[in-house]
């Protein structure tokens, strides 16, 4: 995705209805492009060693100290049951922040690389097909095409909700698959 393409995208969309247009940060993982609401992104960091949390699901790599706050780091690849890769110096951690009923919640997700920022209007998005029998679909809010590339928009709120129940279900599903 070039910046020219993004510019073009901006032009086409902004004329129509700029009100429900939102900006998304996109990142690459296993060749696919994913997007998260840019307002939920607190910062982007390089990968650093974490402190392992006991008995955590395997997609929780551990916790780090983010300026005095303990922040858990989630490996999105293993969260989505994708093939694992070695972390390299260019491996990126996106720190996401959402408001929940329990207050603000901050969590980092490990992704392959950060890609771009797109302005996407809600009306351009398509619901993901419902037929997919996969736990991960619940994290997907919608799909959108930008310059013939599909971007998977993620529901950050759900992604960061790692309640015990979901954890257990996830663990079971993961175990079943193995």
């Amino acid at each position, binding site marked *: 995705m070039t910046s020219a393409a993004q510019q073009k995208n901006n032009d086409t969309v902004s004329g129509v209805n700029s009100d429900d247009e939102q900006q998304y940060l996109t990142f690459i993982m296993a060749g696919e492009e994913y997007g998260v609401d840019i307002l939920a992104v607190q910062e982007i960091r390089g990968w650093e*060693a*974490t*402190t*392992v*949390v*006991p*008995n*955590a699901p395997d997609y*929780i790599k*551990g*916790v*780090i*100290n983010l300026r*005095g*706050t*303990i*922040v*858990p780091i989630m490996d999105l690849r293993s969260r989505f049951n994708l093939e694992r890769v070695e972390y390299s110096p260019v491996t990126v951690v996106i720190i996401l922040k959402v408001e929940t009923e329990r*207050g603000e*919640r*901050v*969590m980092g997700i490990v992704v392959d690389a950060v890609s771009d920022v797109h302005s996407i209007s809600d009306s351009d998005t398509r619901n993901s097909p419902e037929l997919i029998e996969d736990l991960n679909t619940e994290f997907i809010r919608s799909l959108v095409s930008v310059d013939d590339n599909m971007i998977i928009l993620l529901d950050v709120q759900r992604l960061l909700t*790692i*309640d*015990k129940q979901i*954890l257990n279900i996830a663990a079971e599903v993961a175990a079943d698959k193995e």
Partner: protein
Amino acid sequence: MSIDLSQFHQVFFEESFEGLDIMESSLLALDLSEVDAETINTIFRAAHSIKGGAGTFGFMQVSSFTHVVETLLDEIRGGDRDIEQDHVDLFLLCVDCLRGLMTDLQAGSEPDMAQADDLKSKFEAILAGETIATEGNVEGAIEGTVEGTIESSASSLESKQGSDESALQGWKVEFIPCEDVLCTGNEPYRMFRELQDLAEAEGGGVEVIPHLERLPEFSKMHPEMCYLSWTILVRAGIELSDIEEIFEWVVDECDIRYQKLADSDLSTVESHQAPETIEDVNEVASTATPVAEEAIAEEAVVEEVVVEEAVSTEEISGEQKIDQVTEKLDQAVAEKAKNAPPKAAKASSKAAENTSIRVSIDKIDGLINMVGELVITQSMLGQLGQEFDVSRVQRLQEGLSQLEQNTRELQESVMKIRMLPISFAFSRFPRLVRDLSKQLDKEVDLVMLGENTELDKTVMEKIGDPLVHLVRNSLDHGLESVEERTDKGKSRAGTITLNAYHHGGNIVIEVKDDGAGLNKDRIRSKAIEKGLIGEDEVLTDAQIHDLIFQAGFSTADVVSDVSGRGVGMDVVRRNIAELNGTIDVSSTPGEGSLFSIRLPLTLAILDGQLVKVGEEVYIFPLVSIVESIQLEKSMLNNITGNQFVMQLRNDYIPIVCLQDVFNIDLEKKDLEGAMLVVVEGDNEKIGIVVDELLGQQQVVIKSLEKNYQKVDSISGATILGDGTVALIVDISGLNNKPVDKNTDDQTQAA
């Protein structure tokens, strides 16, 4: 000039809640046989400032209600009236009611005035009743009881209905202003209006009768002179001082005479007053009606008649029906009064949590001193740094150690700010015990010890409810009834002792009663009945006692509203566990039970021992470490194949490998020669195998739950000097689950 008053609302609420607490505790401390004037003054002052504040901020509901309370208090203070037990009860209800009003106001919602109006009319009845009684017109007008108060209101109503005016409570004010009163900027009309407001606030009214005698001929009249004089009839139970206050500005220049209305010269008054008589009755009836209505709202159809009758009476104002109304009002109010205590309890439990903290000036001064020292040290070090050479290493080290000391002191002082005496948590108990013992018809002495023991504010806020549960339980289940106690040869009154003291890094809070103690057989059979234990399981006393903390367990035969539903003790234990605390119970049949709660002094900072397991650093709370030893083969025993125990002096201590509990992928080690940290949590010792002991340091506890979730056996996280995160091990959590966690993967450990 516009000042946004709302910015002060929070302060007002806080002060008022404090004032209410003071009122409550003073009321409870009041010894009726020997009334201490200072206590009454304290109560009065508290009520007065609440009234004043509420008036300033426009909370008229609160101020007008408090005004009545204050009036009665003022009479008591002035010695015009003896305080009685029933007054105290009524005042306590008022405190609850006010607290409810304030909570509503604070939450920004419209307060429910039903209870306030109800109480207000009771106060007015007392005030009215007193006037009558002193004049000897109505006998026994003040039955101080809550039910009785309305009786008196009814009887005043009754006597008002009669032809003589004496029962009408109020004042006759002869107001003869000097002629140039208008020139001094005093407007009589404004005073009358103020009087009227005052009277209407009391449910009364004002009648102004002008006297035109002094009016000169028109040609001689000076437009700026006042030739009128007035007779003002104030028909409301207002303090004379309040009326005087209104005329305060003109009292020097004018002729003002006050007379109690009942005593007043009837011939002058009567002619004006005759038409109002009926109106007055209606007024009184209408103040009484809400009481009846409310009672009816809760009771069934029967009392509906009362309202109808009350209404019809108003219309007809027939004498004979008043009696009936009076009777029914009595009934209604009596019913109402019965319902009052549980309501009151509800109101008090609803009290909002304070979000700010009051710190004594000493602590602040101490802090300022310390910061001063810190600044000095800093400038000393700064100077040293500018012209440093090797010869000054000595001074640098001195400076650094001074800095360290300053920092530690500063930290301690800041922590102290969060510390409050536990009396904040204890203060609610005198009231609670008083109400409950009445409700349960038991006699209870409450003894509170160690009230000055300091505890972190956060802990304090969370320990309140569990403590209430415990005290309620002790009162309801623990203490026997008066008859039972006398039969057993015990003193009539049971004793509940609340005690708090520091013990190591913990605070211990004890709730002790001298009641019947826990009935082991009954607990046992109940536990078997509920399937918590097997029929023939052998349990130690401690284990049986421990059963009461199981969910859904209650031995109370009758479920009362005090306790007995079996929700409680398990919640208590859970709440306390959330604070990293523990609760134990010990009991001797026939002699009573003792619940002791152990809590860490603060939730924010912990003395920790750093240990290394594999690549990870964990922290053990220093207070829970008993000792650290190196394992020897001779100490080791293997029970059930994969659970190792170690003989340490007279104990057998289970051994736990942290890497197993935490599922850390590490090579299994030989236990022999391993480093073992013996820790104690929940009164049980376990040995934890670690790779290496690192240093000890104070760590600041950070929440792991905030962004992640609760992790078993981990109580929190902290940040070490190098910026990495280390997890703090929850010893009692570890203690409760070592065995089942290990069974599948410990086999190798041998």
